[in-house]
């Protein structure tokens, strides 16, 4: 049946997110929070995250461009991004942030620049994945609460 195919697709997609380490347990927690009072909670939160994190990334970009680099500020900004990433369970993104901060602490500017590219890449990649995911979800309609396969 169409729905079951869709559900399967959704379930598989989500499973892959977890298997490949893009998302972690926290994402389930957010899904658990979704209820009748806030039926689109997960998508709202994710949207909010990407909006805010994009802003942060822009700030980091600017900070990296300013010379001499202020590692303290870079570290602080990345700390914020990391904290934000943890809110939706963006595990891989979180890790990339941590690596960046390590470079910051060592004041390794090349490392920072390289790592920042990775951060941006992961951020964009996750965004795309989740957009696809929610698109599928919308297709099955508000009836269905996200499947918790693999939990």
């Amino acid at each position, binding site marked *: 049946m169409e729905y079951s195919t869709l559900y399967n697709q959704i379930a598989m997609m989500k499973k892959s997110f977890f298997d490949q380490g893009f998302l972690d*347990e926290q994402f389930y927690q957010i899904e658990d*929070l979704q209820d009748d009072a806030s039926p689109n909670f997960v998508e709202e*939160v994710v949207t909010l995250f990407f909006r805010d994190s994009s802003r942060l990334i822009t700030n980091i970009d600017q900070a990296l461009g300013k010379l001499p680099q202020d590692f303290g500020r870079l570290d602080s900004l990345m700390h914020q991004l990391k904290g934000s990433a943890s809110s939706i369970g963006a595990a891989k993104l979180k890790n990339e942030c941590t690596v960046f901060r390590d470079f910051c602490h060592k004041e390794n500017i090349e490392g920072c620049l390289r790592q920042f590219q990775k951060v941006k890449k992961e951020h964009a990649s996750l965004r795309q994945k989740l957009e696809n995911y929610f698109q599928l979800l919308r297709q099955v309609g508000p009836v269905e609460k996200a499947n918790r396969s693999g939990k």
Partner: protein
Amino acid sequence: MHTSFYLTLLSSSFSTTVTSSSAPQESMENPLPTSRAEAFPAGLRVLIVDDDPTWLKILEKMLKKCSYEVTTCSLATEALDMLRGKRDRFDIVISDVNMPDMDGFKLLEQVGLEMDLPVIMMSIDGETSRVMKGVQHGACDYLLKPVRMKELRNIWQHVYRKRMHELKDIETHNIHEDTNILRNGSEDPDDRQYVAGTEMSSVRKRKDLESKEFVDHEFNDPSTVKKARVVWSVDLHQKFVNAVNQIGFDKVGPKKILDLMNVPGLTRENVASHLQKYRLYLIRLQRQNEGRACSGNLSSDFMNGENRGNNGFNSSTNIQSESELTTYTSTTENFQTQGIVPSVHISEPKKIEPVQIIGSKKVPSNDVLCASKINNAPHLSVLLSFNDKMTDIKACEPATPKHKPLLSGTPMMQFMQYPKQESCNILSEYSCLTYVDQNLDPSFHQYSSTLPAFISATCTSEKDVKDLFEMKPVLTDYRNGHFTAIPVQVKRGAVNAQDIGAGCKVAGSPSIQDCYLNDKYSQGYFPLTYEFSLNGETEADSLPEDVHLCSLQKIGSIENLGFSSAEIYQYGDSTPTTDVESNWYDSSELNGEYSYDPVEYPLIDEYLFA
């Protein structure tokens, strides 16, 4: 620096809230007290502060799922406004540590001091030092992000616990309050009686009310029992500080403060909790100001006339406020403003070999201040104690090979630095030193801009030592005073109480040559000795500044020894000082009977040796 405590004594609300179980003025925010009480912890009013919008949304949802009443806020300043705007609007505050407009710890402090609400800190950073810092600043819990539902579900326990304590305090101290109030009749009989009357009745009322509620509700209904929240306004706080200064830190107690403050409607319990917070606050402030975190493991015993026998002198001289130390160390260059002889960072705990102690054996836990034993030691040895890293200085026997030089008869100088206060009074300085609060009353700025006071005394003979002893009683008398100028006493040959009493005596102009750093101690203890030529009793504080400068310059030479102000007090925010403390305590005869409470500052003893 800090802004003084807020001032607003809700005297009216004090008596009124006694009888009401919720804030009637803010009733629109609060559901009916009884219903809320019955449903406790449901309906718990939570204020959540986080600059991350995603987290704010998530946490809000989570808290709502716990049936709590949630208010969100993304700025610390906004949160404070909310809290101040309507008292008793919230039961608990949850705040992230990293906020853009204000340090989360600062917010934590403010809320704790002003509103006395339980505050939970949150962060993605779970490093022990951070958590410790949170606890030090008064957080009742520290949650790691990502936060789980079950953790949030349990936050009500902090509210409950606090209420329970309040109840207990109220009940156990009601009697004291009543007695206290009744006894405060002298100054203003009419007023007092009136106050006593109202106080009694309101206290009784509250007690009755709370007892009743205690009985009625299974939970003792802490959610509905509202302690009258005293808002510590600037005036009130000033009174508080004045009272504390007057009493003398080592003798301070909530009841005494309350008596002195003479504020109608204020309870001993209010004062007690405020005192506690104040102490912590001052310590932290001091640390920030001085750029160093002082270990606050000093118990107040230290200064509490722990003088054993002859310890008087030593103890008093030993007392050194933490602030002094900090300022001292942090401003090797900027002596002027800090005026504190930098403490030398002693990395390894070493015992200071016999230190001549003047008459007393008081050894502060932090600073090994060895009161020299008069004995036959013609000299005084003062140990320069260094905050945090002080090695223990033991009271030493008069004769030790190491200290042979000390026995040479060269006068030793005892160094004491005290933050400059208003009056040049050594004795008062002592009290100031021992009592952090005094140093750090709302006019903190004063402190940071004052020069340290030096007190030096040298004895070259037994008589001198005896004289020094005499200092003690004199000193204690002045405890409560304030001191301004830097008292410097430089004497060689004789010290007499009068001189000390006079406060500032600078004999001649100390010359740099006179100051020397003695780095002979292999133990790593850095003795700082000053030798001033004694010109007999001189008046006034002719050259306190100079003296300081002298010492400073000398201190500067400390750097030659490998110490730098940067090294000094390399104290992490949350680094516990317990390990350092162990270094201080030594089993010298002076023994560390001193334990400082966080408010106390370690003494800096200068170890003098000829």
